[in-house]
């Protein structure tokens, strides 16, 4: 009996891994090959050795085996359901502790680990920039998730280090002479409700929250650095709020499944006053140029499209641009200032809105360029350097970037 059971089990398992391998190769083989033969180079420095080359290729392959695998989404859902079945409140999917907030939104909790190293690097850079080039630095802290303490179920508050970390970052930065904007202050000032600030299904904040934070950042930079950027251009009242109901199933939604996580409305915000921008973006060597109003240039409506056969979009958060793209936007109607923004996915809509307040905005994600931070600054020669980061960018681990 056992012999036959073993044979059936072996047959099923071998069939499963063979199908996983073959279908993945058929569907994704080209991207695997691209990663192995081309894009691995993004991980190499100029003085890379043969071993560095090998490590980079292996790293790309490893990344692809993690991210591009047949049935990955189905397995995610199955895993989330298993965790729900056994009664867990904190879902551990993809190495993150995800919990349902009291308003029904889902939230990735943050560990309390120290992250001082990257923050101190940023402060040192800011001081050097001021000393060498007399360029000021601003830091826009983009808060993740919980803006009100009672959103997190009470007994789990002890596990979350999000606010404690945010306090330390903003206080340390401010004490170092950097113009700091804390999105938690923008939330209070704009008198928003939690649903207006955080997504139900995504790790990111809402575009409204990004706009309010960008507005506060302009006010703070004007006050602290005497920049004279156009703060009135970012008043919410001067924006059209175009609502796309139940459109987005964000990262957490994809991780846990739409049966567990509700979909999000997406608010596309664009000025209700006349704008005229010259827009240029570059990603992986592909350059896109456009000219016209904000909603025709900066806003990328194709990101609102549905995901294949599904009735939701997984890209709608990126309607203000791909976070890995380098953007250069010129706005002749705005005050004559050049702003360089180093941003992550949270900072991407912030930098998009800043294009309305300054003559020229260049925004770069440092993870997608082989240039050093100094090289970027030398190329752009800005009046101010803005870091628009969520706390993940200041944590110890380095992100791997999707191709």
């Amino acid at each position: 009996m056992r012999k036959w059971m073993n044979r059936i089990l072996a047959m099923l398992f071998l069939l499963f891994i063979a199908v996983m391998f073959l279908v993945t190769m058929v569907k994704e083989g080209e991207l695997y090959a691209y990663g192995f033969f081309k894009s691995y180079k993004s991980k190499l420095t100029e003085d890379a050795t043969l071993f560095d080359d090998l490590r980079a290729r292996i790293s790309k392959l490893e990344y692809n085996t993690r991210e591009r695998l047949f049935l990955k989404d189905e397995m995610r859902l199955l895993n989330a359901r298993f965790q729900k079945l056994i009664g867990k409140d904190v879902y551990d999917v993809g190495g993150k502790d995800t919990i349902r907030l009291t308003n029904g939104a889902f939230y990735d909790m943050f560990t309390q680990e120290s992250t001082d190293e990257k923050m101190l690097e940023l402060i040192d850079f800011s001081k050097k920039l001021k000393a060498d080039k007399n360029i000021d630095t601003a830091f826009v802290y983009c808060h993740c998730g919980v803006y009100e303490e009672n959103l997190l179920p009470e007994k789990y508050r002890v596990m979350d280090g999000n606010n404690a970390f945010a306090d330390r970052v903003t206080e340390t930065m401010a004490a170092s002479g950097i113009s700091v904007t804390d999105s938690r202050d923008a939330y209070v000032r704009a008198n928003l409700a939690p649903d207006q600030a955080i997504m139900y299904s995504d790790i990111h904040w809402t575009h409204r929250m990004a706009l309010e934070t960008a507005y506060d950042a302009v006010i703070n930079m004007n006050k602290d650095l005497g920049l004279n950027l156009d703060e009135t251009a970012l008043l919410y009242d001067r924006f059209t709020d175009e609502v796309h109901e139940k459109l987005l199933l964000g990262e957490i939604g994809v991780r846990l499944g739409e049966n567990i996580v509700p979909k999000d409305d997406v608010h596309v915000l664009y000025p209700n006053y006349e704008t005229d921008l010259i827009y240029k973006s570059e990603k992986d060597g592909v350059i896109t140029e456009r000219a016209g109003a904000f909603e025709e240039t900066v806003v990328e409506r194709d990101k609102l499209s549905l995901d294949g056969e599904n009735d939701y979009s997984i890209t709608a958060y990126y309607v203000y641009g791909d976070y890995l793209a380098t953007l250069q936007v010129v706005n002749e109607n705005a005050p004559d200032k050049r702003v360089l923004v180093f941003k992550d996915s949270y900072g991407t809509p912030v930098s998009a809105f800043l294009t309305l307040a300054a003559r020229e905005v260049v925004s770069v994600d440092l993870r997608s360029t082989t240039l050093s931070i100094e090289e970027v600054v030398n190329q752009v020669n800005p009046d101010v350097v803005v870091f628009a980061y969520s706390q993940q960018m200041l944590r110890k681990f380095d992100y791997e970037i999707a191709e």
Partner: protein
Amino acid sequence: MVFSSNAFLFFFLPIVLGVYYIFRKNRTAANSILTIFSLLFYAWGEPSFVFVMLLSIFINWIFALGIDHYRARTRAAKAILFASCVMNIGLLGVFKYTSFIVTNVNKAFSVSIPDPGLALPIGISFFTFQAMSYVIDVYRGKGEVQKNFMGVCLYISFFPQLIAGPIVRYQTIADEIKNRRETLDDFCTGLRRFLVGFAKKAILANNLALVVDKVFAYPQSEISVALMWYAAIAYLIQVYYDFSGYSDMAIGLGRMFGFHFLENFNYPFLSKSVAEFWRRWHISLTTWFRDYVFFPLGGSRVKTGRLIFNMFVVWSLTGLWHGAEWTYLVWGVGFFLVQVIERLTGVGKHMEKKWYGHIYAMFFVVVVTVLIRSESIGHALNYYKAMFFLGGLPVWNTLTGIFAHEYGLFFAVSIIVSLPVGPWIEKKLHIPEPVSEIVRFLGLAAVTVVAVSYVIVGSYNPFIYFNF
């Protein structure tokens, strides 16, 4: 590369199985294929270390040939054996212990010798011990010398046991390198064993690792005495499932390719004494030290003082083998002390006859294992103080409740599965074999799916063998 990864499960494994079974009739080709894939497997973690391993294999191959050549001239053979031991221990010492020695010399003598900061090749302790086993077994005539470099290369680098054991003695598989038979039943039994180990690692070990790593990362002021005990017990069980899971996978994979490795664990949590625990835990390591260190030192048929010395050497080395830190050394010495006491006072034999022997043995093992999870002796002492109510911590707090709720099920299942509960139930309830087989089949199929889902979604999957 680790077994519980997408890269291994869905790419490496189907490819190596496919290629191997196409060429399996040609033994030279089949062995070459296994060797090449084993080197690729190792290179996946760090390509440059492949050369370290190949160098070690090459030198040991030459040493063994030398021993075989001078077999009639005992002194020459002995000299070569000695040289090979020096080389192997030296290699291990350079990579694994240089930093430890330099740091401590600097501290002790207030000097500042620069630490070369050598990275530790993955699994160096395992492959070095296998290499030593090869040369020593050839010297002792317990295995035929491999004239072909590929044979030694396969024995030492064979991917199932390469990075996390078990330490396969040369004499165990010497014959199977050249003459083995792959059968369908062996293959299927091996695959089943692989799946059991995979589920142990992906579901139980990794979820317990979440408890352990989170609790040990919290400031002590935020946790409770109960949570500290919970984490300490969870750590022991995590190590068990991590290690025994890997051993199961290695034994299973070996069998799929026609190799038969010896068992590495035998229900260690049934132990009623610390000595018994080590007869059931990481058996390949304890028997390696017994046969290659303890017996050559004189074993146990010596005067008491010498016996204590022999045991001290073995257990200190066991501690240091696990890691180049004082915590590991003290951990090993802790086991030495309690086993000496068990042996000299008869406590061990007494406990093995009593039910409370379980409590005694597990209590000691849990407590002493905290050492190897701690960053330093000081950290461990603070942990002990708190565990034994000397840290002023509450017995229970909110965080303890959270961990009990979130991971309690994994904790409970882990304990049950670590004991022979299944066979006991089958016997007690007189469950007919076909029924029990179907239940086992369905159970294993279900846990495999869950385990695969954990791996595919990229859940927490620590690799705890970097120190070993």
